[in-house]
């Protein structure tokens, strides 16, 4: 049996960890909203600044989940944590910026191009944590609980002990981020089923 043991939501204004609002966007700050959240984490990880918004979203979500569940970094072998992420727009937010670099600025930007694949965020999370497990990024017409239930279960049967899952809706200022951790045989958390997942997702 699997359990949702932590979840994190980020929208345009607020960041919520396990149901508690932990940060609200300071509209007067010169920092972007994700940079504000990064600073709140008090990490030393300069690579964050090179990431596009999709990767920043997944990075912050995964760091907050770790903050809520510190044992995540120690409880499992380095290939026992799967990554299962999805969204509707793929990497469109950065795709638009890369297209601008060659259409408007007449200079295709390699640093943008490397982020024009949605699974790059999985690589960023894997690099950050030295996780060598299974990865999958899917593009779905909308948030589909069945996809996470079914494929999460498949990853667990194949040997993952935990799966970090997420819906990363990032496009032209829209932010709809839901990152959650599913673990097997946990003493805490909500049982992973359709109803609980929908409640937890909130959309």
């Amino acid at each position, binding site marked *: 049996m699997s359990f949702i043991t932590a979840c994190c939501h980020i929208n345009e204004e607020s960041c919520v960890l396990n149901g508690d609002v932990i940060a609200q966007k300071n509209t007067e700050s010169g920092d972007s909203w994700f940079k504000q959240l990064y600073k709140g984490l008090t990490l030393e990880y300069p690579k964050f600044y090179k990431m596009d918004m999709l990767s920043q979203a997944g990075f912050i979500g995964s760091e907050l989940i770790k903050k809520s569940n510190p044992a995540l970094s120690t409880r499992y072998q380095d290939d026992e944590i799967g990554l299962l992420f999805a969204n509707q727009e793929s990497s469109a937010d950065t795709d638009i910026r890369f297209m601008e670099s060659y259409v408007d600025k007449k200079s295709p930007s390699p640093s943008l191009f490397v982020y024009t694949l949605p699974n*790059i965020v999985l690589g960023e999370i894997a690099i950050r944590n030295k996780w060598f497990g299974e990865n*999958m990024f899917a593009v779905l017409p909308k948030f589909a609980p069945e996809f996470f239930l079914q494929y999460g279960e498949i990853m667990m049967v194949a040997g993952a002990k935990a799966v970090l899952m997420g819906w990363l809706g990032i496009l032209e200022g829209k932010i709809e981020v839901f990152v959650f951790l599913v673990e097997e045989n946990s003493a805490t958390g909500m049982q992973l089923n359709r109803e609980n997942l929908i409640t937890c997702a909130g959309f």
Partner: protein
Amino acid sequence: MTYIGAEEIVSPLGQSIRENFQSVCENRSGISLVPHAGFNQEAIHLSKITDLSSSNKFETLLIDTLSKVAKRIDPARITSKKTLVIVSSTKGGLDRNIKDPFAPSLTSLVKHFGLANEPLVVSNACISGVLAINAANNFIKAGLYDHVIVLGCDVISDFVLFGFQSLFAVSATPCTPFDLNRSGISLGEGCAAVVVSNTPEIFKNKPLGLYSGTSANDANHISGPSRTGEGLYRSVKRTLELNKMSFGEIDFISAHGTATVFNDEMEAIAFDRLNMADIPINSLKGYFGHTLGAAGVIETAISMQMMRHNMLIKSLGYSETGTSKSLNITTGNKSSELNTILKTASGFGGCNASLVFRKL
């Protein structure tokens, strides 16, 4: 084990699996010099489908390929509630709608065939195709579907070509995987399909056996392969362990072999670490170019044909060892009993995947 068959390919090398395999057997390449294709209007070597109208290429290829698949299985299965279509692609129909690259084409696909289930898009860089076939096997083993049709498709666009040019990753000559003088990729486009099923009866031709595959991340770099081949090493090792197979049972490896200096070196290191350096291996990129999200499906489909014909196919473009660990690269077509084949893929984001299939 599940059953895999009904492989089809639409590419510059042909409109069917038969034509594509024939071209490959004749060691013909789909890569040619396309004038004014590059960012500075320079000519670029591409494997481009010339008779494909430029609007909605992605959708046209998906529909065309699935129509061909429908002739190779019991056609009633296409619309069954127990059938899922998985599309593997990196950029989909980006040229049509950059903000929503998949939904418009998939909506047309569903409507055209009357598919019962919403297709699933796997977009995991260059391992998308292998990952999608592994996902198909997993969905069936879990009892969620009886049949899964995997469609791998990517088309050449300014977006992708200019991007690879900006990384200095495009070869000035047709790509030469694993060769000493390799200098980058040649982009390609195409669409391929395989059908994975829990029953052999739906196939008009005898299927092959598909075994569980795995993926692993390098956890090293988002756009550079691991220097130790860690993710590929781990993925192949886990795939073999999962199926209780030893490396000695693999008769042939269909490698990723993009022809970039670092990718091919990484693969050579990984296969050497796996004690698989002596197993016959090729890269099909010299025929089809790098078709990104379609590559894993195209190359699996050709490898299935190699198995059916017991024929090793020359690794086009290779002439001299160009990696620090030497591999047993296939330098000419050769008859060979092929019972078990390993297919691998690696991609940006540090991802790697592998799958195994066998003659029944």
